[in-house]
């Protein structure tokens, strides 16, 4: 009756080999590209980016570029789904592995606060990226790299006002998301005196969203400016303009990029899109925490470091489409 154990042994040996193979395949070696100027640093990045979200692949590409440029060891980790307990556990594990620096996103400060606190208490430098601009100071995080929503909205409003609009709507596709409310508020501020009405639609229901936007447009003929807060609002808005025959009369702009948005920009159907340039969030997050771990250097005195708003317009849309295919925008 030795055979079963023997088989179990072989089976798990297979696992060992699989694990070793994966480890070799996974990059993160500083022997290959270390130029001798960096000592052996190991940075861990933990985000809430779901595997299916192309936005976060761009962040991960920025992280990997920073790893290669700096010649250090960087590990990028995220739960497969939006799962705060799992993310907190990943941070706990990162802390236990005693890295030289930690980069995190903070979509839920309540759920992640204790784990991040533990990292700081353990003396690990922590930088937050993407989400968390409102809480990073209270948690004792060095700095935040991202886009502040209100200021980005102000930028959108100013550009829209320059285009000469007189009456606008701000289409909110996810009511309850505080970040989106801030974008609309900033937009109204940036417009100066131009009126701006918020129209609420549901991102999970594109047909309903389109109907809602059409209704808002037909209710007020004087509307000549429209801001959407993401591709899930922009696509139905473009369709609504087309359907109601107002395309060309109404200036339309959006937050964040998608293939559809880029094509509309390239065709001159949109005024601009606001890009938070998340590639930089990954790149700068790693760069900043590395510089701090190595030399104690910190830019900005702890003020947030803004990666956006970057503006994509019909003039530079073609270049962005190219970079988007490479996973950089």
């Amino acid at each position, binding site marked *: *009756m030795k*055979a*079963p*154990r023997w*088989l*179990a*042994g072989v*089976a*798990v040996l*297979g*696992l*060992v080999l*699989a*694990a*070793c193979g*994966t*480890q070799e395949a*996974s990059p*993160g070696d500083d022997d290959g590209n270390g130029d001798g100027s960096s000592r052996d640093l190991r940075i861990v990045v933990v985000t809430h980016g779901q*595997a299916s979200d192309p936005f976060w692949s761009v962040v991960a590409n920025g992280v990997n570029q920073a790893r290669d440029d700096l010649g250090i*060891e960087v*590990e*990028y*980790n*995220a*739960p*497969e*789904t*939006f*799962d*705060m*307990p799992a993310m*907190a*556990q*990943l941070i*706990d*594990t*990162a*802390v*236990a*592995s*005693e890295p030289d620096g930690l980069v995190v996103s903070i979509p*839920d*400060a*309540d*759920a*992640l*606060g*204790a784990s991040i606190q533990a990292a700081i208490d353990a003396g690990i430098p922590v930088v937050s990226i993407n989400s968390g601009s409102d809480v990073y100071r209270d948690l004792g995080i060095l700095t935040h790299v991202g886009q502040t929503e209100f200021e980005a909205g102000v930028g959108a409003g100013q550009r829209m006002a320059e285009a000469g609009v007189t009456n606008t709507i701000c289409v909110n596709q996810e*009511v*309850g*998301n505080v970040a989106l409310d801030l974008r609309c508020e900033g937009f109204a501020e940036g417009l100066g005196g131009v009126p701006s009405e918020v129209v609420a639609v549901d991102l999970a229901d594109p047909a309903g969203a389109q109907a809602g936007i059409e209704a808002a447009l037909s209710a007020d003929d004087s509307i000549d400016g429209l801001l959407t807060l993401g591709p899930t609002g922009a696509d139905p808005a473009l369709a609504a303009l087309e359907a109601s025959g107002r395309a060309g009369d109404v200036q339309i702009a959006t937050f964040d990029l998608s293939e559809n948005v880029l094509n509309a920009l390239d065709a001159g159907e949109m005024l601009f899109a606001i890009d938070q340039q998340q590639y930089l969030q990954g790149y700068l997050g790693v760069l900043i925490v590395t510089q701090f771990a190595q030399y104690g250097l910190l830019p900005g005195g702890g003020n947030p470091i803004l990666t956006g708003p970057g503006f994509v317009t019909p003039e530079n849309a073609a270049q962005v489409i190219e970079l988007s295919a490479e996973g950089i925008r």
Partner: protein
Amino acid sequence: MASAEARPVDERVRRVGLTRTLLNRPELGAVTGAILVWVLFAILAGDRGFLSLNGTATYLEVAAQVGLVGSAVALLMIAGEFDLSVGSMIGAASMVMAIGIAELGWPVYVAVAAAFGFALVVGFINGYIVVKTRLPSFIVTLGMLFILRGVTIGITRALTGRTQVPGVHAATEGDPIAAIFTAQLGPFDVVILWWLVIAAVATFVLMRTTFGNWIFGAGGSAIAARNVGVPVARVKIVLFMATAASAALLAVIQVLTFGSGDVLRGEGKEFEAIITAVIGGTLLTGGYGSAIGAVFGALTLGMTRQGLFFAGISSDWYQAFLGLLLLIAVIVNSWVRNRATRGG
């Protein structure tokens, strides 16, 4: 009367060697597997924190969270039924907790009672439908998985206008009931203790009580069991209520520990719970399995999840490893069982 020695020994009371006794235990594969996975990561990542106290605490916490539910799910599977709704149950119960405490201002004990009460009702409904309609529990609880998730998202958005409810910490700070679910001993969370206690209770029930025999009977052959007087329907309904309650316990612990609830909590946990039970030697067809096995199944899962991190392998690969582990475990377990349970 002929002397006992002269009679051929009844196979039920024949002497059995130690090796065979061990091989006959459903959890053998899981225990061996857990040890091997530990050794594997100790070699790969021993110098990177896997063996440290903090490292141990993190994989035990992951194991405890899935093991809590896994132990209850193992009992249900031994009784021949599935519960795919536990993942959604975690989300629903965590919203009952979070909305109750943060939005409606309930005291902690009321919110905890409400979460468990809600879970027991849903568990009862699951069990009642399965028993009355004789439909496969896979389908019934698959329906419940979607119903619960949808209702959770719908009600939460309608009540609060958002999908994530924060602010539980502020209301529960210093609450003695909350401490039962969130206490810490050094780096170790109390959830680990809950896990071990629940696994011990499940094992005791299974191995030492009449109810435990009924569980095996209901899963082995429900008709035969009913004919010898086992209340199969009652056993199954109670077990459905137990799996729902275990999900609620995890939800209570998560909400009080992490201070918030969101509508996606627990997504995919139904499969992880089944995986821990199956790695632990429980048969999908029922009638065979162990709660101790599920403990080692959960431990294996926890060590794999966090061990990959310590070994410097991206978490992108975790699900592939989990699937591989599951396949290996099932193949080894069934091979061992076929060899060991053969007569002679």
